């Protein structure tokens, strides 16, 4: 059954994503899917920090908003060139992330969650109240779609779909490489036991800060894309509700896994679409799901699958006993992916 291996599944998914617009021929579905991709990028950021490094930042939506508003203000009020503004938005968000992380990461667990909760709220409040800059509750309108890259324009839903998809694929590649490298191992070590990580010589502060800035970078990227895609933004995009939405996608999909963000976001967004009548009350269903999930299936969908695979692999290992099979067992252990 070598046909169903990771490589082929990934390629199939990518092809599916590319073919999607032609299959559905429906502008609304393309719109929803593009939005899902945008959220996914944010979820990957959340996952890197919470899933792999073990720090749950409740300020995530705040940085999403910073990215969105940076892009919005630079293009609308400062009339800056789109892509220049885009890059600047990412830089601004990352620098802010660095400064916040510097202080926030000196706190642990409960304090970190509460601290980031407050930072997120401060960001939201500032955007809401500083209306001379941000237009406050009135919202920022007229944000341009992405500018042309050479001859390619991005005015249509279709072109925007592929732009976002392309960026998403790059993001996934980057996260993949990080997670499967020594850096990824380091983050996971910190998540599993920060004290022990320090004992074996890992500079936990440096690595945590790195992961934090990365997560804010992805949040900002997601926000900037959102602003350009939806074309108008209000302070509510910095509301804690967004953080909770992303957290829900991540948990259902599988926290600390590579495919979790994809599975969770697509699943929840599309189920919410089906339950349109419940739109505002979707948390009536997803709230309890989140709680039940964390009690019974904290690893989410992708995580549980990875867990079963790992158990199967371990059973195979238990059968190998001879010294010669030592090289086999280490190879099999190597193939056990960093999924949790």
């Amino acid at each position: 059954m070598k046909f169903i291996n990771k490589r082929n599944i990934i390629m199939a998914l990518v092809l599916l994503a590319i073919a999607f617009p032609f299959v559905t021929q429906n502008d609304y579905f393309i719109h929803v899917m593009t939005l899902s991709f945008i959220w996914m990028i944010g979820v990957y950021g959340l996952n890197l920090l919470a899933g792999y490094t073990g720090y749950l930042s409740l300020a995530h939506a705040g940085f999403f908003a910073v990215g969105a508003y940076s892009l919005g203000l630079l293009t609308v009020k400062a009339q800056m060139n789109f892509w220049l503004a885009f890059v600047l938005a990412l830089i601004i968000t990352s620098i802010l992330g660095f400064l916040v992380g510097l202080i926030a990461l000196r706190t642990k667990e409960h304090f970190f969650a509460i601290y980031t909760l407050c930072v997120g709220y401060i960001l939201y409040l500032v955007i809401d109240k500083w209306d001379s800059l941000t237009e406050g509750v009135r919202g920022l309108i007229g944000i341009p779609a992405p500018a042309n890259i050479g001859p390619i324009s991005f005015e249509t839903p279709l072109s925007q779909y592929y732009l976002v998809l392309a960026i998403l694929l790059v993001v996934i590649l980057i996260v993949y490489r990080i997670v499967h490298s020594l850096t990824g191992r380091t983050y996971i070590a910190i998540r599993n036991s920060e004290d022990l990580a320090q004992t074996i010589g890992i500079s936990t502060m440096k690595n945590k800060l790195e992961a934090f800035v990365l997560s804010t970078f992805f949040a900002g990227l997601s926000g900037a894309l959102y602003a350009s895609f939806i074309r108008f933004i209000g302070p509510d995009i910095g509301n804690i509700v967004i953080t909770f939405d992303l957290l829900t996608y991540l948990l259902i999909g599988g926290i600390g896994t590579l495919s979790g963000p994809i599975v969770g976001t697509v699943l929840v967004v599309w189920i919410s679409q089906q339950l349109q009548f419940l739109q505002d009350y979707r948390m009536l269903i997803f709230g309890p799901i989140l709680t039940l999930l964390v009690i019974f299936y904290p690893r989410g969908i992708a995580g549980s699958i990875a867990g079963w695979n790992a158990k199967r692999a371990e059973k195979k290992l238990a059968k190998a006993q001879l010294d010669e099979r030592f090289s086999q067992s280490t190879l099999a252990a190597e193939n056990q992916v960093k999924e949790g």
Partner: protein
Amino acid sequence: MEILVQQLFNGLTIGSVYALVALGLTLVYGILHIPNFAHGALYMMGGYITLMMMVQYGLHYWLAILVSVIVVGLIGVLMERLVFYPLRHAPPIHDKIAAIGILLFLEAFAQYVWGADYQTMPTPYGQVIQLFGLTFTMQRLLIIIAAIAVMVLLYLFLKKTYTGASIIAMSQDRDGANLVGINTNRVAMLTFLISGGLAAIASSLAAPINLVFPGMGQLVILKAFVIIILGGMGSIPGAIIGGYILGFSESLGATYISNDYKDIIAFILLVIILSVKPTGLFAKGGH
């Protein structure tokens, strides 16, 4: 000068509400070492149930509050049994996420049942009285008196009764308490009951001067967290003193600095304190 006194009185009012909410939060943290992120939802439910009792069933204000205290207290107990107890051995991140799930559910529930509009709670104490040449509303006076009464009752309960003492014992050393025969499960449930009740009282007292809406717990709970971090997680005097300090700061800040940004005062305080002392103001070692 008049304004100053008026604002100090205001601070006392706001502080009373904050102190009650923070007390509930700190009691739970003290025995379970869990920051209950769903506490804001308990606060919100408290307000709505009181409102519903008054408006739909015509109950008198105090009776409605009593019903609310019982119901929200029970919701708290359910939370402890169904969610926090199963998660007692899980990594701390799970408690927080589970609480968030409950919070989201309850907020959506409130919106579903009572609508998203901002509603007013009619109060039988809308009169205005004059004292020492200053104007106070009865309601605000009532908040202060009721809050202090509750705190005194709580203090007496904790210090003078066996059950109260067992809560204190458990907050100091859970395993030790277990060893001396204290039923830690019962104590946990009781603490959540009290915690919910406190939130309900705070919310019902404050509702007539604020509004009732699904998100009413969000801001209050954030500030309550700030308070218990400043005052010491698990410290009862800390919650009370912290609540009043914040109440005064906000009241004076709103008048003399800026009304728009008064909510930020709490968070700026937190940012400053945690930047300097990442373990909180009164770190008790261990952890």
